[in-house]
């Protein structure tokens, strides 16, 4: 292993295993150590251990276990919601509660993390992708509702249309869950602004579940005036809360 690749791996391991300040210190120390080392590259691992082991030795195991527990708990929210995406029951009100709970927990947990220093190009790219997905999904959803409520012909046979839309929302939800987990890792390894990706991921997941539960509901009485109002209300509140919490997470 080359010195530069050893340092890259060590830096990644340190930012994952250690709190930001300690990670910076350990990385700086190893940079200095590697600079002084004259040995051949092959001896590095033998002398220092693997980058993961080296960082593990340098940190306090209790703190790392605490982070792993928090990460597991935070990851549980999108994982459970993803399972609901593929289940028969979509539990949309519970999903909205989970999204808010997860968002609040992430806001509190990462509050002590480092603030963003420069412009977060990569983060805003991911957030933009999320918004795009959300707008696309919302567009499909409301077009479908409009077609159904105005008793217009849908462009595909109803069965195919239903399957396509369902899998569209499932894919959007799955993509959001992955981005939410990516956001968690970013909040630990980069800076706390990355938790906004997690919050937005949870929001999009909750909205996808709401759309699926609305589409799959057997109790839709489209002849009743404003039958869509409860769905719109729940979606509006979830979306608004999600947007507010995403904004707070960016700070």
């Amino acid at each position, binding site marked *: 292993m080359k010195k530069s690749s050893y340092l890259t791996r060590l830096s990644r391991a340190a930012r994952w295993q250690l709190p930001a300040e300690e990670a910076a210190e*350990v990385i700086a*120390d190893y*940079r*200095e150590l590697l600079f*002084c080392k004259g040995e051949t590259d092959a001896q590095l691992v033998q*002398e220092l251990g693997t980058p993961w*082991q*080296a960082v593990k030795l*340098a940190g306090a195991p209790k703190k790392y276990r605490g982070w792993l527990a928090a990460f597991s708990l935070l990851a549980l929210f999108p994982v459970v919601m993803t399972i609901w995406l593929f289940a028969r029951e979509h539990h949309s009100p519970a999903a909205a509660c989970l999204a808010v709970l997860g968002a609040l927990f992430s806001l509190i947990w990462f509050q002590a993390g480092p603030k963003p220093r420069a412009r977060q190009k990569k983060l805003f790219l991911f957030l933009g992708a999320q918004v795009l997905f959300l707008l696309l999904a919302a567009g499909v959803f409301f077009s479908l509702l409009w077609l159904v409520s105005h008793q217009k012909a849908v462009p595909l046979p109803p069965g195919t249309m239903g399957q396509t839309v369902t899998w569209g929302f499932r894919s959007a939800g799955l993509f959001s869950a992955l981005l939410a987990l990516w956001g968690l890792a970013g909040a630990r390894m980069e800076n706390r602004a990355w938790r906004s990706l997690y919050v937005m991921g949870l929001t999009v997941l909750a909205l996808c579940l709401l759309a699926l539960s609305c589409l799959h509901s057997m109790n839709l009485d489209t002849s009743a005036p404003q039958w869509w109002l409860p769905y719109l209300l729940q979606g509006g509140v979830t979306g608004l809360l999600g947007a507010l919490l995403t904004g707070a997470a960016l700070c």
Partner: protein
Amino acid sequence: MLKKEVLELCLLQMLLKEDQYGYELLKRLHSAFPDTQESAIYALLRGLCREGRTESYQGRQSGGPARKYYRLTPAGQEYQKQLLAQWQSLQRAMEELGIL
């Protein structure tokens, strides 16, 4: 008294004489205990720093990253005395048992 404390004693003993550059400490100790990885020694040095027994400061640069030097604190001197006393009593016990 296990190996961890022996290594700590060695680190503190080296720092008792003079402030030392981190890499120098690791190299010297690693050559005395070749079966111990340098990362493990670095972790001990870091632990001593965290516990306030040593402290670090940036020294002169030599074309590369700033050099980090370590020095003993009064708490470190006290700890060094304790470890040395433990080591001596262990040595006496071993001698009495005819091991050494």
